[in-house]
Protein backbone atom coordinates (compact mmCIF):
# COMPACT_ATOMS: atom_id res chain seq x y z
CA UNK A 1 0.00 0.00 0.00
CA UNK A 2 2.77 2.37 0.91
CA UNK A 3 4.51 1.58 -2.34
CA UNK A 4 1.32 2.23 -4.26
CA UNK A 5 0.84 5.60 -2.55
CA UNK A 6 4.39 6.62 -3.28
CA UNK A 7 4.00 5.69 -6.93
CA UNK A 8 0.67 7.55 -7.13
CA UNK A 9 2.26 10.61 -5.56
CA UNK A 10 5.08 10.43 -8.09
CA UNK A 11 2.73 10.41 -11.07
CA UNK A 12 0.55 13.12 -9.55
CA UNK A 13 3.65 15.29 -9.14
CA UNK A 14 4.56 14.61 -12.75
CA UNK A 15 1.14 15.81 -13.94
CA UNK A 16 1.34 18.87 -11.68
CA UNK A 17 4.76 19.72 -13.08
CA UNK A 18 3.36 19.41 -16.57
CA UNK A 19 0.40 21.64 -15.70
CA UNK A 20 2.78 24.17 -14.16
CA UNK A 21 4.91 24.19 -17.32
CA UNK A 22 1.75 24.74 -19.35
CA UNK A 23 0.60 27.61 -17.10
CA UNK A 24 4.00 29.25 -17.22
CA UNK A 25 3.64 29.52 -21.01
CA UNK A 26 7.26 28.61 -21.58
CA UNK A 27 6.23 26.88 -24.78
CA UNK A 28 3.36 27.70 -27.05
CA UNK A 29 0.15 25.85 -26.01
CA UNK A 30 0.13 24.38 -29.51
CA UNK A 31 3.32 22.55 -28.66
CA UNK A 32 2.50 21.79 -25.06
CA UNK A 33 -1.18 21.31 -24.29
CA UNK A 34 -2.32 21.03 -20.71
CA UNK A 35 -2.97 17.61 -19.13
CA UNK A 36 -6.68 18.46 -19.13
CA UNK A 37 -6.72 19.02 -22.89
CA UNK A 38 -5.09 15.65 -23.37
CA UNK A 39 -7.54 14.10 -20.95
CA UNK A 40 -10.48 15.62 -22.72
CA UNK A 41 -9.20 14.35 -26.07
CA UNK A 42 -8.94 10.90 -24.54
CA UNK A 43 -12.45 11.18 -23.15
CA UNK A 44 -13.92 12.26 -26.49
CA UNK A 45 -12.01 9.63 -28.39
CA UNK A 46 -13.17 7.03 -25.92
CA UNK A 47 -16.79 8.17 -26.15
CA UNK A 48 -16.97 8.35 -29.96
CA UNK A 49 -15.19 5.01 -30.27
CA UNK A 50 -12.11 6.10 -32.27
CA UNK A 51 -9.80 5.04 -29.53
CA UNK A 52 -11.34 1.61 -29.04
CA UNK A 53 -11.45 1.00 -32.78
CA UNK A 54 -7.84 2.03 -33.30
CA UNK A 55 -6.69 -0.02 -30.31
CA UNK A 56 -8.51 -3.09 -31.55
CA UNK A 57 -7.01 -2.73 -35.02
CA UNK A 58 -3.52 -2.27 -33.67
CA UNK A 59 -3.78 -5.09 -31.17
CA UNK A 60 -5.17 -7.43 -33.79
CA UNK A 61 -2.20 -6.76 -36.06
CA UNK A 62 0.19 -7.13 -33.18
CA UNK A 63 -1.27 -10.33 -31.77
CA UNK A 64 -1.66 -12.09 -35.10
CA UNK A 65 1.84 -11.13 -36.19
CA UNK A 66 3.30 -12.02 -32.82
CA UNK A 67 1.53 -15.35 -32.80
CA UNK A 68 2.84 -16.19 -36.29
CA UNK A 69 6.31 -15.15 -35.16
CA UNK A 70 6.13 -17.50 -32.18
CA UNK A 71 4.66 -20.40 -34.08
CA UNK A 72 7.35 -20.18 -36.75
CA UNK A 73 10.17 -19.07 -34.46
CA UNK A 74 9.97 -21.78 -31.81
CA UNK A 75 10.34 -24.76 -34.16
CA UNK A 76 13.01 -22.93 -36.15
CA UNK A 77 14.92 -22.33 -32.94
CA UNK A 78 14.63 -26.00 -32.01
CA UNK A 79 15.84 -27.04 -35.45
CA UNK A 80 18.83 -24.69 -35.32
CA UNK A 81 19.78 -26.03 -31.91
CA UNK A 82 19.33 -29.64 -32.92
CA UNK A 83 21.03 -29.84 -36.31
CA UNK A 84 24.29 -28.21 -37.28
CA UNK A 85 23.04 -27.64 -40.80
CA UNK A 86 20.15 -25.50 -39.55
CA UNK A 87 22.39 -23.79 -37.03
CA UNK A 88 24.89 -22.81 -39.71
CA UNK A 89 22.21 -21.56 -42.08
CA UNK A 90 19.06 -20.38 -40.35
CA UNK A 91 20.88 -19.71 -37.09
CA UNK A 92 23.39 -17.43 -38.76
CA UNK A 93 20.65 -15.72 -40.74
CA UNK A 94 18.60 -15.16 -37.58
CA UNK A 95 21.60 -13.70 -35.80
CA UNK A 96 22.19 -11.30 -38.67
CA UNK A 97 18.60 -10.28 -39.14
CA UNK A 98 18.07 -9.81 -35.44
CA UNK A 99 20.64 -7.03 -35.44
CA UNK A 100 18.61 -5.24 -38.09
CA UNK A 101 16.33 -2.72 -36.37
CA UNK A 102 12.87 -3.98 -37.21
CA UNK A 103 11.81 -0.57 -38.54
CA UNK A 104 14.12 -1.30 -41.46
CA UNK A 105 11.64 -3.90 -42.67
CA UNK A 106 9.03 -1.22 -43.31
CA UNK A 107 10.27 0.04 -46.69
CA UNK A 108 10.70 -3.50 -47.96
CA UNK A 109 7.27 -4.54 -46.70
CA UNK A 110 5.71 -1.53 -48.45
CA UNK A 111 7.31 -2.34 -51.77
CA UNK A 112 6.46 -6.00 -51.53
CA UNK A 113 2.95 -5.85 -50.18
CA UNK A 114 1.84 -2.28 -50.91
CA UNK A 115 -0.48 -0.46 -48.55
CA UNK A 116 -2.00 -3.60 -47.11
CA UNK A 117 -2.57 -5.47 -43.87
CA UNK A 118 -0.03 -7.97 -45.14
CA UNK A 119 2.68 -5.33 -44.98
CA UNK A 120 1.80 -4.64 -41.34
CA UNK A 121 1.82 -8.30 -40.43
CA UNK A 122 5.09 -8.87 -42.23
CA UNK A 123 6.79 -6.17 -40.20
CA UNK A 124 5.46 -7.54 -36.92
CA UNK A 125 6.46 -11.08 -37.80
CA UNK A 126 9.97 -9.99 -38.71
CA UNK A 127 10.20 -8.11 -35.42
CA UNK A 128 9.21 -11.18 -33.42
CA UNK A 129 10.67 -14.07 -35.34
CA UNK A 130 14.41 -13.70 -35.06
CA UNK A 131 14.47 -12.94 -31.35
CA UNK A 132 12.39 -16.03 -30.71
CA UNK A 133 14.58 -18.20 -32.93
CA UNK A 134 17.75 -17.06 -31.23
CA UNK A 135 16.38 -17.29 -27.71
CA UNK A 136 15.04 -20.78 -28.31
CA UNK A 137 18.33 -21.90 -29.80
CA UNK A 138 20.35 -20.42 -26.93
CA UNK A 139 17.95 -21.90 -24.40
CA UNK A 140 18.18 -25.39 -25.87
CA UNK A 141 21.94 -25.24 -26.15
CA UNK A 142 22.18 -24.24 -22.51
CA UNK A 143 20.17 -27.15 -21.16
CA UNK A 144 22.57 -29.00 -18.83
CA UNK A 145 23.36 -32.41 -20.40
CA UNK A 146 22.69 -34.06 -17.04
CA UNK A 147 18.94 -33.42 -17.45
CA UNK A 148 18.98 -35.31 -20.73
CA UNK A 149 20.93 -38.16 -19.22
CA UNK A 150 18.67 -38.41 -16.19
CA UNK A 151 15.59 -38.38 -18.42
CA UNK A 152 17.12 -40.96 -20.77
CA UNK A 153 17.59 -43.44 -17.95
CA UNK A 154 13.96 -42.98 -16.97
CA UNK A 155 12.90 -43.93 -20.47
CA UNK A 156 12.31 -40.52 -22.02
CA UNK A 157 13.17 -40.16 -25.67
CA UNK A 158 12.43 -38.23 -28.86
CA UNK A 159 9.23 -36.19 -28.58
CA UNK A 160 8.83 -36.80 -24.87
CA UNK A 161 12.39 -35.62 -24.36
CA UNK A 162 11.75 -32.46 -26.39
CA UNK A 163 8.46 -31.53 -24.81
CA UNK A 164 8.98 -32.67 -21.24
CA UNK A 165 12.66 -32.01 -20.72
CA UNK A 166 14.39 -29.79 -23.23
CA UNK A 167 11.66 -27.22 -23.81
CA UNK A 168 10.82 -26.76 -20.12
CA UNK A 169 14.51 -26.60 -19.26
CA UNK A 170 14.97 -23.89 -21.89
CA UNK A 171 11.89 -21.99 -20.74
CA UNK A 172 13.64 -19.09 -18.98
CA UNK A 173 15.56 -18.32 -22.16
CA UNK A 174 12.52 -18.77 -24.36
CA UNK A 175 10.41 -16.44 -22.25
CA UNK A 176 12.99 -13.71 -22.31
CA UNK A 177 13.18 -14.16 -26.08
CA UNK A 178 9.41 -13.91 -26.30
CA UNK A 179 9.53 -10.73 -24.31
CA UNK A 180 12.18 -9.23 -26.51
CA UNK A 181 10.24 -10.36 -29.58
CA UNK A 182 7.15 -8.66 -28.19
CA UNK A 183 9.03 -5.40 -27.64
CA UNK A 184 10.48 -5.49 -31.14
CA UNK A 185 7.11 -6.32 -32.68
CA UNK A 186 5.41 -3.50 -30.80
CA UNK A 187 8.03 -0.96 -31.87
CA UNK A 188 8.08 -2.04 -35.47
CA UNK A 189 4.29 -2.06 -35.71
CA UNK A 190 4.14 1.51 -34.44
CA UNK A 191 6.74 2.54 -36.99
CA UNK A 192 4.84 0.77 -39.74
CA UNK A 193 1.54 2.37 -38.75
CA UNK A 194 3.07 5.81 -38.70
CA UNK A 195 4.65 5.36 -42.11
CA UNK A 196 1.88 3.50 -43.79
CA UNK A 197 -1.62 4.83 -43.96
CA UNK A 198 -3.72 2.02 -45.26
CA UNK A 199 -7.38 1.87 -45.94
CA UNK A 200 -8.13 -1.32 -44.08
CA UNK A 201 -8.05 0.37 -40.71
CA UNK A 202 -6.62 3.17 -38.63
CA UNK A 203 -4.45 1.91 -35.84
CA UNK A 204 -2.94 3.86 -32.97
CA UNK A 205 0.14 4.70 -35.05
CA UNK A 206 -2.06 6.21 -37.70
CA UNK A 207 -3.91 8.30 -35.13
CA UNK A 208 -0.54 9.51 -33.97
CA UNK A 209 0.43 10.32 -37.54
CA UNK A 210 -2.76 12.30 -38.15
CA UNK A 211 -2.29 14.12 -34.88
CA UNK A 212 0.96 15.41 -36.30
CA UNK A 213 -0.60 16.28 -39.69
CA UNK A 214 -3.27 18.31 -37.92
CA UNK A 215 -0.81 19.75 -35.40
CA UNK A 216 -3.14 18.35 -32.75
CA UNK A 217 -0.66 17.99 -29.95
CA UNK A 218 -3.31 16.83 -27.46
CA UNK A 219 -4.02 13.91 -29.78
CA UNK A 220 -0.32 13.12 -30.21
CA UNK A 221 0.36 13.05 -26.50
CA UNK A 222 -2.84 11.21 -25.70
CA UNK A 223 -2.08 8.44 -28.19
CA UNK A 224 1.48 8.20 -26.92
CA UNK A 225 0.09 7.68 -23.45
CA UNK A 226 -2.23 4.97 -24.70
CA UNK A 227 0.71 3.23 -26.38
CA UNK A 228 2.73 3.38 -23.18
CA UNK A 229 -0.16 2.02 -21.14
CA UNK A 230 -0.68 -0.89 -23.54
CA UNK A 231 3.00 -1.74 -23.31
CA UNK A 232 2.85 -1.64 -19.53
CA UNK A 233 -0.29 -3.74 -19.39
CA UNK A 234 1.16 -6.37 -21.69
CA UNK A 235 4.10 -6.63 -19.36
CA UNK A 236 2.07 -6.72 -16.16
CA UNK A 237 -0.68 -9.00 -17.38
CA UNK A 238 1.17 -11.36 -19.62
CA UNK A 239 4.91 -11.46 -18.97
CA UNK A 240 5.15 -10.60 -15.27
CA UNK A 241 3.19 -13.63 -14.05
CA UNK A 242 5.24 -15.98 -16.24
CA UNK A 243 8.48 -14.44 -15.06
CA UNK A 244 7.36 -14.57 -11.45
CA UNK A 245 6.56 -18.24 -11.85
CA UNK A 246 9.97 -18.91 -13.38
CA UNK A 247 11.75 -17.01 -10.63
CA UNK A 248 9.87 -18.91 -7.97
CA UNK A 249 10.47 -22.31 -9.53
CA UNK A 250 14.08 -21.82 -10.54
CA UNK A 251 14.95 -19.78 -7.49
CA UNK A 252 16.49 -17.03 -9.56
CA UNK A 253 16.56 -13.45 -8.31
CA UNK A 254 13.21 -12.07 -7.28
CA UNK A 255 12.24 -9.11 -9.43
Amino acid at each position, binding site marked *: MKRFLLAAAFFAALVLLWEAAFRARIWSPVLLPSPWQVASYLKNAAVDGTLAKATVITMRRLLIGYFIGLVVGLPLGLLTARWKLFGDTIGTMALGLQTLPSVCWVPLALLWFGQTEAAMLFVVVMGTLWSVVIATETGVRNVPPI*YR*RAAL*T*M*GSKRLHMWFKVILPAA*LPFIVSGMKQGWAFAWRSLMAAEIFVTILTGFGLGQLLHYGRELSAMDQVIAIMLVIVVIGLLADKIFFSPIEKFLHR*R*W*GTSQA
Partner: protein
Amino acid sequence: MRRAARHHSSVSEELEVIAPSKLAIENVSKSFQSASGTVLALDRVSLNVAEGEFVCLVGASGCGKSTLLNIIAGLEKPDSGTVRADGKPVTGPGRERLVMFQEPALFPWLDVFGNVLFGLKLKPTLTNKDRRDVAKYYLELVGLSRFEHANIHELSGGMKQRVSLARALAPNPRVLLMDEPFAALDALTREQLYGDIQEIWSARRKTIVFVTHNVREAACLGDRVLLFSPHPGRIHEEFPVKLPRPRDINTVDLAAYATRITKALRSLGQAEAIGAR
Protein backbone atom coordinates in the same frame (compact mmCIF):
# COMPACT_ATOMS: atom_id res chain seq x y z
CA MET B 1 11.99 -43.58 8.16
CA ARG B 2 8.46 -44.92 8.17
CA ARG B 3 7.02 -47.38 5.74
CA ALA B 4 4.05 -45.97 3.87
CA ALA B 5 0.55 -47.01 4.84
CA ARG B 6 -1.43 -49.59 2.91
CA HIS B 7 -2.26 -48.98 -0.72
CA HIS B 8 -4.95 -50.47 -2.90
CA SER B 9 -4.25 -53.42 -5.15
CA SER B 10 -2.80 -51.99 -8.39
CA VAL B 11 -0.52 -49.71 -6.46
CA SER B 12 0.61 -52.49 -4.17
CA GLU B 13 1.39 -54.44 -7.32
CA GLU B 14 3.53 -51.56 -8.52
CA LEU B 15 5.15 -51.28 -5.13
CA GLU B 16 5.88 -54.99 -4.94
CA VAL B 17 9.46 -55.85 -4.18
CA ILE B 18 10.64 -57.25 -7.51
CA ALA B 19 13.58 -59.50 -8.10
CA PRO B 20 16.79 -57.53 -8.47
CA SER B 21 18.95 -58.12 -11.55
CA LYS B 22 22.07 -60.10 -12.04
CA LEU B 23 24.69 -58.13 -13.93
CA ALA B 24 27.35 -59.72 -16.07
CA ILE B 25 30.06 -57.49 -17.44
CA GLU B 26 32.44 -59.22 -19.80
CA ASN B 27 35.67 -57.85 -21.23
CA VAL B 28 34.43 -54.30 -21.45
CA SER B 29 36.91 -51.83 -22.94
CA LYS B 30 36.42 -48.17 -23.58
CA SER B 31 38.81 -45.49 -24.72
CA PHE B 32 38.46 -41.74 -25.08
CA GLN B 33 40.21 -39.20 -27.24
CA SER B 34 41.77 -36.48 -25.15
CA ALA B 35 44.17 -33.66 -25.87
CA SER B 36 47.12 -35.85 -24.88
CA GLY B 37 46.03 -38.78 -27.05
CA THR B 38 43.90 -41.84 -26.56
CA VAL B 39 43.08 -42.71 -22.98
CA LEU B 40 42.13 -46.28 -22.18
CA ALA B 41 39.44 -45.69 -19.56
CA LEU B 42 38.52 -49.34 -19.22
CA ASP B 43 40.68 -52.27 -20.22
CA ARG B 44 38.88 -55.61 -20.56
CA VAL B 45 36.97 -55.26 -17.34
CA SER B 46 34.90 -58.25 -16.26
CA LEU B 47 32.62 -58.27 -13.29
CA ASN B 48 29.66 -60.26 -12.06
CA VAL B 49 27.16 -58.73 -9.70
CA ALA B 50 24.72 -61.09 -8.01
CA GLU B 51 21.01 -60.41 -7.59
CA GLY B 52 20.54 -57.90 -4.83
CA GLU B 53 24.21 -57.39 -4.25
CA PHE B 54 25.60 -54.05 -3.14
CA VAL B 55 28.89 -53.49 -4.96
CA CYS B 56 31.08 -50.46 -4.48
CA LEU B 57 33.64 -49.34 -7.04
CA VAL B 58 36.46 -47.26 -5.60
CA GLY B 59 39.50 -45.73 -7.16
CA ALA B 60 41.30 -42.51 -7.89
CA SER B 61 39.45 -40.09 -10.14
CA GLY B 62 39.91 -40.93 -13.79
CA CYS B 63 40.20 -44.66 -13.20
CA GLY B 64 37.17 -45.44 -15.30
CA LYS B 65 34.74 -46.36 -12.54
CA SER B 66 32.17 -43.77 -13.61
CA THR B 67 32.62 -44.82 -17.22
CA LEU B 68 31.79 -48.38 -16.24
CA LEU B 69 28.70 -47.18 -14.43
CA ASN B 70 27.57 -45.23 -17.49
CA ILE B 71 28.11 -48.28 -19.65
CA ILE B 72 26.03 -50.43 -17.31
CA ALA B 73 23.37 -47.70 -17.43
CA GLY B 74 23.46 -47.81 -21.22
CA LEU B 75 24.32 -44.13 -21.43
CA GLU B 76 27.62 -44.98 -23.09
CA LYS B 77 28.56 -47.81 -25.38
CA PRO B 78 31.68 -49.91 -24.77
CA ASP B 79 34.23 -50.18 -27.59
CA SER B 80 34.20 -53.92 -27.04
CA GLY B 81 32.78 -56.39 -24.57
CA THR B 82 29.23 -56.85 -23.35
CA VAL B 83 27.04 -55.95 -20.42
CA ARG B 84 24.15 -58.25 -19.64
CA ALA B 85 21.37 -57.65 -17.17
CA ASP B 86 19.57 -60.89 -16.37
CA GLY B 87 21.20 -62.43 -19.40
CA LYS B 88 19.91 -59.80 -21.81
CA PRO B 89 22.48 -57.52 -23.45
CA VAL B 90 22.24 -53.86 -22.48
CA THR B 91 21.88 -51.79 -25.64
CA GLY B 92 20.73 -48.47 -24.26
CA PRO B 93 19.37 -46.74 -21.18
CA GLY B 94 16.31 -48.25 -19.61
CA ARG B 95 14.29 -47.81 -16.49
CA GLU B 96 15.23 -51.23 -15.07
CA ARG B 97 18.61 -49.63 -14.38
CA LEU B 98 18.21 -46.17 -12.93
CA VAL B 99 21.05 -43.80 -12.19
CA MET B 100 21.60 -41.42 -9.34
CA PHE B 101 24.18 -38.83 -10.24
CA GLN B 102 26.56 -36.83 -8.11
CA GLU B 103 24.65 -33.65 -8.92
CA PRO B 104 21.02 -34.19 -8.03
CA ALA B 105 20.00 -33.64 -11.70
CA LEU B 106 16.50 -32.80 -10.51
CA PHE B 107 14.36 -30.83 -12.93
CA PRO B 108 13.95 -27.26 -11.70
CA TRP B 109 10.76 -26.71 -13.70
CA LEU B 110 8.96 -29.33 -11.62
CA ASP B 111 8.34 -29.38 -7.90
CA VAL B 112 9.49 -32.24 -5.68
CA PHE B 113 6.39 -34.29 -6.42
CA GLY B 114 6.63 -33.65 -10.14
CA ASN B 115 10.21 -34.87 -10.14
CA VAL B 116 9.34 -38.15 -8.45
CA LEU B 117 6.39 -38.50 -10.81
CA PHE B 118 8.52 -37.98 -13.93
CA GLY B 119 9.70 -41.54 -14.37
CA LEU B 120 6.33 -42.94 -13.33
CA LYS B 121 4.60 -41.00 -16.09
CA LEU B 122 6.73 -42.94 -18.55
CA LYS B 123 5.21 -46.20 -17.34
CA PRO B 124 2.15 -46.59 -19.53
CA THR B 125 0.43 -49.30 -17.50
CA LEU B 126 -0.26 -47.11 -14.48
CA THR B 127 -3.25 -44.85 -13.93
CA ASN B 128 -2.61 -41.31 -12.79
CA LYS B 129 -3.90 -42.11 -9.33
CA ASP B 130 -1.51 -45.05 -9.07
CA ARG B 131 1.34 -42.81 -10.09
CA ARG B 132 0.50 -40.27 -7.43
CA ASP B 133 0.20 -42.95 -4.77
CA VAL B 134 3.50 -44.52 -5.75
CA ALA B 135 5.24 -41.14 -5.74
CA LYS B 136 3.79 -40.42 -2.30
CA TYR B 137 5.04 -43.77 -1.03
CA TYR B 138 8.62 -43.07 -2.07
CA LEU B 139 8.59 -39.52 -0.80
CA GLU B 140 7.54 -40.94 2.53
CA LEU B 141 10.23 -43.61 2.29
CA VAL B 142 12.91 -40.92 1.98
CA GLY B 143 11.19 -38.84 4.66
CA LEU B 144 10.19 -35.88 2.51
CA SER B 145 6.39 -36.10 2.47
CA ARG B 146 6.13 -32.64 3.91
CA PHE B 147 8.08 -31.18 1.01
CA GLU B 148 5.91 -32.56 -1.78
CA HIS B 149 5.22 -29.17 -3.25
CA ALA B 150 8.53 -27.51 -2.51
CA ASN B 151 10.58 -26.13 -5.36
CA ILE B 152 13.90 -27.82 -5.95
CA HIS B 153 16.00 -24.76 -5.15
CA GLU B 154 14.39 -24.54 -1.72
CA LEU B 155 15.88 -27.88 -0.65
CA SER B 156 19.22 -28.50 1.03
CA GLY B 157 21.81 -30.64 -0.72
CA GLY B 158 20.89 -33.67 1.34
CA MET B 159 17.18 -33.24 0.66
CA LYS B 160 17.88 -32.91 -3.04
CA GLN B 161 19.69 -36.22 -3.03
CA ARG B 162 16.82 -37.81 -1.15
CA VAL B 163 14.40 -36.59 -3.82
CA SER B 164 16.83 -37.89 -6.39
CA LEU B 165 16.80 -41.25 -4.65
CA ALA B 166 13.00 -41.29 -4.51
CA ARG B 167 12.88 -40.41 -8.20
CA ALA B 168 15.27 -43.25 -9.03
CA LEU B 169 13.38 -45.75 -6.86
CA ALA B 170 9.88 -44.80 -8.00
CA PRO B 171 9.80 -46.66 -11.33
CA ASN B 172 10.82 -49.76 -9.34
CA PRO B 173 14.08 -50.51 -11.17
CA ARG B 174 15.93 -53.77 -10.65
CA VAL B 175 19.28 -52.05 -10.52
CA LEU B 176 20.29 -48.79 -8.91
CA LEU B 177 23.46 -47.20 -10.25
CA MET B 178 24.89 -44.55 -8.00
CA ASP B 179 27.65 -42.26 -9.18
CA GLU B 180 29.21 -40.62 -6.12
CA PRO B 181 25.77 -39.51 -4.99
CA PHE B 182 26.89 -38.25 -1.61
CA ALA B 183 30.22 -36.68 -2.58
CA ALA B 184 28.93 -33.13 -2.46
CA LEU B 185 27.23 -33.43 0.92
CA ASP B 186 28.45 -32.56 4.39
CA ALA B 187 29.59 -35.41 6.66
CA LEU B 188 26.55 -35.39 8.92
CA THR B 189 24.04 -35.54 6.09
CA ARG B 190 26.13 -38.21 4.45
CA GLU B 191 26.12 -40.46 7.52
CA GLN B 192 22.37 -40.12 7.76
CA LEU B 193 22.05 -41.17 4.14
CA TYR B 194 24.30 -44.21 4.70
CA GLY B 195 21.74 -45.44 7.17
CA ASP B 196 18.84 -44.60 4.88
CA ILE B 197 20.29 -46.23 1.81
CA GLN B 198 21.03 -49.46 3.67
CA GLU B 199 17.52 -49.52 5.05
CA ILE B 200 15.99 -48.89 1.64
CA TRP B 201 18.28 -51.43 0.04
CA SER B 202 17.16 -54.14 2.41
CA ALA B 203 13.50 -53.12 2.14
CA ARG B 204 13.38 -52.73 -1.65
CA ARG B 205 15.96 -55.37 -2.61
CA LYS B 206 17.87 -53.70 -5.42
CA THR B 207 21.12 -54.61 -7.05
CA ILE B 208 23.26 -51.57 -6.38
CA VAL B 209 26.47 -50.52 -8.07
CA PHE B 210 27.90 -47.62 -6.17
CA VAL B 211 30.81 -45.52 -7.40
CA THR B 212 32.81 -43.53 -4.88
CA HIS B 213 36.30 -42.35 -4.11
CA ASN B 214 35.57 -42.48 -0.39
CA VAL B 215 36.97 -45.77 0.93
CA ARG B 216 35.13 -45.67 4.25
CA GLU B 217 31.87 -45.04 2.45
CA ALA B 218 32.54 -48.04 0.22
CA ALA B 219 33.36 -50.29 3.18
CA CYS B 220 30.26 -49.11 4.99
CA LEU B 221 27.87 -49.78 2.13
CA GLY B 222 29.27 -52.55 -0.03
CA ASP B 223 28.99 -56.33 0.20
CA ARG B 224 32.08 -56.15 -1.94
CA VAL B 225 34.44 -53.29 -2.63
CA LEU B 226 36.24 -53.34 -5.95
CA LEU B 227 39.39 -51.32 -6.20
CA PHE B 228 40.07 -49.82 -9.62
CA SER B 229 43.51 -49.03 -10.90
CA PRO B 230 43.85 -46.20 -13.40
CA HIS B 231 45.60 -45.93 -16.80
CA PRO B 232 44.27 -48.22 -18.04
CA GLY B 233 41.18 -48.71 -15.89
CA ARG B 234 41.10 -52.21 -14.46
CA ILE B 235 39.73 -53.95 -11.42
CA HIS B 236 42.83 -54.29 -9.27
CA GLU B 237 41.58 -56.02 -6.16
CA GLU B 238 38.42 -57.20 -4.54
CA PHE B 239 37.50 -56.82 -0.87
CA PRO B 240 34.48 -58.68 0.46
CA VAL B 241 33.15 -56.81 3.49
CA LYS B 242 31.79 -59.28 5.99
CA LEU B 243 30.18 -57.09 8.59
CA PRO B 244 26.63 -57.29 9.90
CA ARG B 245 24.12 -54.72 8.70
CA PRO B 246 23.05 -52.07 9.22
CA ARG B 247 26.58 -50.82 9.46
CA ASP B 248 27.73 -47.72 11.23
CA ILE B 249 30.55 -45.92 9.48
CA ASN B 250 32.20 -45.03 12.77
CA THR B 251 32.97 -48.53 14.06
CA VAL B 252 36.44 -49.97 14.57
CA ASP B 253 35.74 -53.07 12.47
CA LEU B 254 34.74 -50.94 9.56
CA ALA B 255 37.79 -48.76 10.00
CA ALA B 256 39.95 -51.90 9.77
CA TYR B 257 38.44 -52.71 6.37
CA ALA B 258 38.83 -49.15 5.23
CA THR B 259 42.47 -49.14 6.28
CA ARG B 260 43.20 -52.26 4.26
CA ILE B 261 41.57 -50.83 1.19
CA THR B 262 43.26 -47.48 1.63
CA LYS B 263 46.65 -49.19 1.86
CA ALA B 264 46.00 -51.02 -1.38
CA LEU B 265 44.85 -47.78 -2.98
CA ARG B 266 47.99 -46.01 -1.81
CA SER B 267 50.33 -48.70 -3.04
CA LEU B 268 48.57 -48.43 -6.38
CA GLY B 269 49.27 -44.73 -6.47
CA GLN B 270 52.92 -45.34 -5.65
CA ALA B 271 53.18 -48.03 -8.27
CA GLU B 272 51.80 -45.62 -10.80
CA ALA B 273 54.14 -42.87 -9.71
CA ILE B 274 57.09 -45.23 -10.12
CA GLY B 275 55.80 -46.37 -13.48
CA ALA B 276 55.56 -42.79 -14.65
CA ARG B 277 59.12 -42.00 -13.70
